[in-house]
């Protein structure tokens, strides 16, 4: 009450006085990459698939800023074109996870009862599964298809987020405004999505970005194990795997995509962090 409220206020204000630049920077980076994903193939100096076997792997030059890989393909162009699959699939995973976890989590947390009970048992089960291991077995044994990888990943990421959303929802539904909404006789869906959702949005957004990052890293990891995309697809993860053998001839062929993955992931995480701060204070 008196005093303590005030202190809370102060602490929060202190936290909020974090610099915006980080947000801008990471946001900008992601925007750039998204642009590359959309228009990369147009701006690319070469056709990412065009080979020059005679040329082979070369160090960066004026003709090829990031050099070429073993098949004489232009690394820069491939990186640009690679943005698409490198970002698209994680995005799909993130959105899928987010959609599932949010709706299910809200449902479980708001309705409680048997729905909640059943759902939580399933979630506990899934969470206790050795995720990465299942993923590799699943995708590996069923024959490496990116579709499987993405689906499996979404399924593996969802339960954790469901738990979070659920607990948040349970906390929110007890708050006065939610009860007031109920006494007003508003419909469940309206209360869930119009009233509760906006208040747990920060966590949801942050969660989505986190699963985006996780998917980004995990998928590039699968490519590293030779699971997932077919050879030759311009994709950062796959490029790392295909070109890590070239570290003496043209290290950039592996380093650049590796850097891109890292940067993308970092930017997304940062953005998640910052957005969370902002949204939860606004």
């Amino acid at each position: 009450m008196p005093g303590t409220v005030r202190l809370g206020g102060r602490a929060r204000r202190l936290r909020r006085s974090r610099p915006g630049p980080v947000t801008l920077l990471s946001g900008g980076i992601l925007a750039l990459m998204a642009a590359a994903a959309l228009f990369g193939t147009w701006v690319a100096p070469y056709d990412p698939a065009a080979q020059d076997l005679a040329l082979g792997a070369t160090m960066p030059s004026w003709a090829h800023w990031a050099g070429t890989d073993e098949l004489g393909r232009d690394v820069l162009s491939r990186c640009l074109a690679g943005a698409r699959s490198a970002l698209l699939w994680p995005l799909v995973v993130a959105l899928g996870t987010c959609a599932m976890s949010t709706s299910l989590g809200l449902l479980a947390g708001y309705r409680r009862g048997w729905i909640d009970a059943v759902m939580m048992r399933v979630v506990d089960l899934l969470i206790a599964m050795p995720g990465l291991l299942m993923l590799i077995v699943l995708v590996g044994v069923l024959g490496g298809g990116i579709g499987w990888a993405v689906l499996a990943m979404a399924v593996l990421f969802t339960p954790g987020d469901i738990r979070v959303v659920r607990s948040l929802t349970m906390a929110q539904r007890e708050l006065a405004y939610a009860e007031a909404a109920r006494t007003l006789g508003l419909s469940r869906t309206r209360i869930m999505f119009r009233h509760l959702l906006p208040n747990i949005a920060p966590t949801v957004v942050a969660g989505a970005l986190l699963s985006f990052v996780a998917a980004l890293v995990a998928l590039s990891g699968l490519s590293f194990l030779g699971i997932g995309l077919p050879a030759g697809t311009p994709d950062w993860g796959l490029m790392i795997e295909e070109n890590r053998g070239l570290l003496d001839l043209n290290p950039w062929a592996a380093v650049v995509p590796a850097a891109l993955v890292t940067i993308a992931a970092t930017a997304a995480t940062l953005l998640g962090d910052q957005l969370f701060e902002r949204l939860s204070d606004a």
Partner: protein
Amino acid sequence: MAFVARRLAAALLLLGVLSVLTYALLALAPGDPEQVLLGPRPSTAESRAAVRAQYHLDDPLPVRYAAWLGDAVRGDFGASLYSRESVTSVIADRLPVTAGLAGYAIVLTLAVGLPAGLVAAMRRGSPLDRGITLSALVALAIPPFAMSILLLYGFAVTLGWFPVFGAGETFAERVTHLTLPAIALATGQAAVVVRQMRAAALDLAGQDYMTFARARGVGRARYWFGYALRNTALPVLTVGGLLLAANLTGALFVERAFGLHGVGELLVSAVGQKDLPVVQALVLMGGAVVVAVNLLIDLAYLAVDPRVRHGAVAA
């Protein structure tokens, strides 16, 4: 006590489900075991028949599963299709490497993560905090294998400080051999711990009982150990445990990049070779580890937190 019994029961149930899932999955996946058994050469009809009979490949799935389960509970997970060795000894051969790697990584993770997180929390908002938080984020984002290759070329080849590959024989060798892989493995996890520790410490700093303790002039040692440490222990412990579990699977990227013959590497090749008994056993082992860790964490809560002990709150 009942609590533990309940957890144990749940654990067993989980393992059961896991085993059924994987068994069915593997059995239904394209490709027949006999191909693996006979090797990729033209094989005579007789030998194929013999193999199918010997491995009961023509029995219906439930029967085969039941048979497998029957042996499994007696600790016999069958023989590897690829090397006719018994699965248990195949895994036993590989386990030390992975266990060593995972353990080493955990030690590094905690040794680096906890202090870093604590410092960051205590200096919240300072450049140091920013630095730690940021590098934690980056570390979180670097794909483990990218890290491995980086280290491999940086320290092992260019600088030549560490051996390039293999797990070494003597303990000392082990340590030097596993240093780089452990670092590669620990990087991402340390980041997690840093974030967790920082959050926990920040949360703690806001607690009234911390202020009250200082206001009563509670001794320094008492303040840090009796209060700070004990109250942050549980969340951090939880993360630590889960990391250890994640380690055993996460290790496979690193093992592959460093040519370590550990369990992870075994899994990847077994999946490639469709060595079903091995894969099955490994998945189960992975599940078992996760379950065991969770169980241990519950017990830890039981030990540390009176509220759990008295069933006031659920762990």
